[in-house]
């Protein structure tokens, strides 16, 4: 059943300003290398390629010249009430940590793909084949994310290894690792976005700017009526964009 949301003292969240996203793909490209996803010759086939971060093109479905478009970058929504977690038969995915990041542990995953089926955001990707890098390119693998063998499910982790790094850095400089400064931990996509469309921080920490941003009247979340209670927020001044965040009956 739909269960309930656990509360965490630190709740990492992302706020994405759709009105600033040009759809360039820098977030996706950043994610691919940050998280050791192999280069895929057929990567434009979205049904088979792996891209933890995926930019969707939204349209208002009107004909020229009333047509409008927007780009919606979609990381894992890190649901407060994740549809994927309760279904996993082997506890390979869990939401049990400070920070509220939905974890995915590759050595535990048996690859049944039940979580893939349960997630309506399509953030979960399966390793259809063993990953292969062009010769030598494996030297540029990031030490911060493990390489997955085929046959397991993977997804965006909010670059949680960067959180670990930030905590280590805080420890090394004598700061409190449980009370990081705003910006001490951001994901690769957030860091590299040239337009500044992505913000990241602790939703519960008043010192972090996302804390205020999620209260913006133009902020919305995806598929909220399903009760997923996500930790990724979107902001758009355009009503049609906000309306595309969820399903509505004609009468609504």
């Amino acid at each position: 059943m739909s269960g309930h949301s656990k509360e965490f003292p630190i709740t990492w969240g992302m706020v994405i300003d759709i009105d600033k996203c040009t759809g360039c793909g820098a977030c996706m490209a950043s994610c691919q290398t940050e998280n050791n996803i192999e280069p895929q010759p057929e990567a434009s086939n979205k049904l088979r390629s792996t891209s933890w971060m995926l930019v969707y093109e939204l349209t208002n479905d009107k004909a020229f010249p009333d047509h409008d478009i927007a780009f919606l970058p979609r990381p894992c929504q890190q649901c407060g009430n994740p549809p994927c977690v309760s279904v996993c038969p082997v506890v390979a995915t869990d939401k049990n940590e400070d920070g509220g990041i939905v974890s995915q542990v590759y050595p535990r995953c048996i690859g049944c793909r039940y979580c893939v089926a349960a997630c309506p955001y399509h953030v979960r990707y399966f390793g259809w084949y063993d990953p292969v890098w062009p010769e030598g390119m494996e030297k540029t693998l990031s030490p911060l994310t493990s390489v997955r063998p085929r046959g397991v499910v993977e997804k965006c982790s909010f670059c949680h290894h960067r959180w670990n790094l930030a905590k280590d850095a805080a420890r090394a400089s004598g700061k409190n690792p449980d009370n990081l400064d705003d910006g001490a931990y951001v994901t690769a996509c957030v860091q590299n976005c040239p337009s500044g469309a992505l913000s990241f921080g602790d939703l519960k920490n008043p010192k972090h700017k996302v804390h205020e941003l999620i209260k913006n009247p133009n902020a919305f979340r995806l598929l909220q009526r399903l009760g997923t209670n996500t930790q990724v927020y979107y902001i758009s001044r355009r009503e049609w964009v906000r309306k595309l965040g969820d399903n509505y009956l004609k009468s609504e």
Partner: protein
Amino acid sequence: MEEKRSNSAGGVGGMVLFALIGFVGALVVGWVIFPKLLYSEKTQPIRFSHTVHAQLGIDCEQCHHLGPDGRFAGLPTTESCAECHGEETGDNSPNGKEIDKFVKDYVKTGAQVPWLVYQYQPDNVFFSHAAHKGFECTKCHPDVAKTDTPPTYYQNRVSGYSKDTMKMWECERCHASMGTSNACYVCHK
């Protein structure tokens, strides 16, 4: 069939006896032989003597230290070893020969020594030494400071891991006793 039975060691009794033999045999194979077969033995590429270095008054931290970002630098690089062992000694003692081997094979070629690390965690584990600074190194690591010859490295033939790689339940047990979270992402990456 009847004939055969009379030839045998006495019906059901024989069966039980053999069952017992099988049982004990299996126990011997399983507990004594199997563990030996499971691991291959490897020696370090260079017979590094920790005692010699310790006796010279070199602190552990001089070679094994935390970086400025709180990350562990791991083992010293060839370059940092070469600060002392830059040239061949020509010394014919066992230690001298070993030093010369190191200089010849690594310092001169610029290669890194493929040290076998007893404790390496797999790639999917994020271990922070900074977070465990309060513990004695020997809580987890073998006390190599007192070894003149590095201990044999046992590699599991099936899993490929060092025999001394800490198992997850060991990490979890300590975390639990310290009141530290055992959430997956505390350690996994």
